[in-house]
């Protein structure tokens, strides 16, 4: 069965630190890849997405993600985090079965 793994369940960073959140998925083929963010008290929002083309995708708020097909990975990065980035981050994969499969999420806490 398709599965998505997010290895870091909790990450604590200081402001201005660099961020990288891991996401791996279970098997290949053609995939569409997504990162969602859930700020405290808010609903899930799309951060960025990859369909094809340049494997380095830029999203909102300075986030980017890199698709590495050979590693089945789609890691999320940000060069310098802010306190307002405190949130839970979910990776999701579309394998063509009309639904997204989500990882378990990574809770990021940025201390000022």
């Amino acid at each position, binding site marked *: 069965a398709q599965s*998505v793994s*997010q290895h870091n*369940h909790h990450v604590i960073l200081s402001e201005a630190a660099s961020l990288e959140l891991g996401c791996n998925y279970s098997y290949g083929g053609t995939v*569409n890849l*997504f990162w*969602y963010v859930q700020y405290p008290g*808010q*609903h*899930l*929002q*799309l951060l960025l*997405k990859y*369909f094809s083309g340049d494997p380095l995708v830029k999203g909102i708020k300075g986030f980017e993600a890199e698709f590495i097909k050979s590693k089945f990975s789609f890691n999320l990065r940000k060069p310098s985090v802010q306190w307002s980035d405190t949130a839970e981050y*979910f990776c*999701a994969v*579309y394998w*063509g*079965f*009309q*639904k*997204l*499969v*989500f*990882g*378990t*999420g990574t809770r990021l806490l940025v201390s000022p």
Partner: protein
Amino acid sequence: GAGVSQTPSNKVTEKGKYVELRCDPISGHTALYWYRQSLGQGPEFLIYFQGTGAADDSGLPNDRFFAVRPEGSVSTLKIQRTERGDSAVYLCASSPEGPANYGYTFGSGTRLTVV
């Protein structure tokens, strides 16, 4: 509406009772999804509607769960004989067609607590 609307935002019910959770998707979105998110977990797929029909209900955990979308817009998730293990946040999402090119737009969820 401008976004996906879910009501109620919170629901507390006693074990064994019946509950209905409502989702009003973005106007014109033909695809509608229900997910369930338990504490510490990511959203887990329950059911997918394309128009009025349930195109994939493989995620419904058992026959106590049922969902409808009779006019291809608003959807209702129905849970019979609720159990404490049903406590979770139930998320609804919609998309213009499938999620391949658009992902989902999520509602704020209904937090169901079974006591």
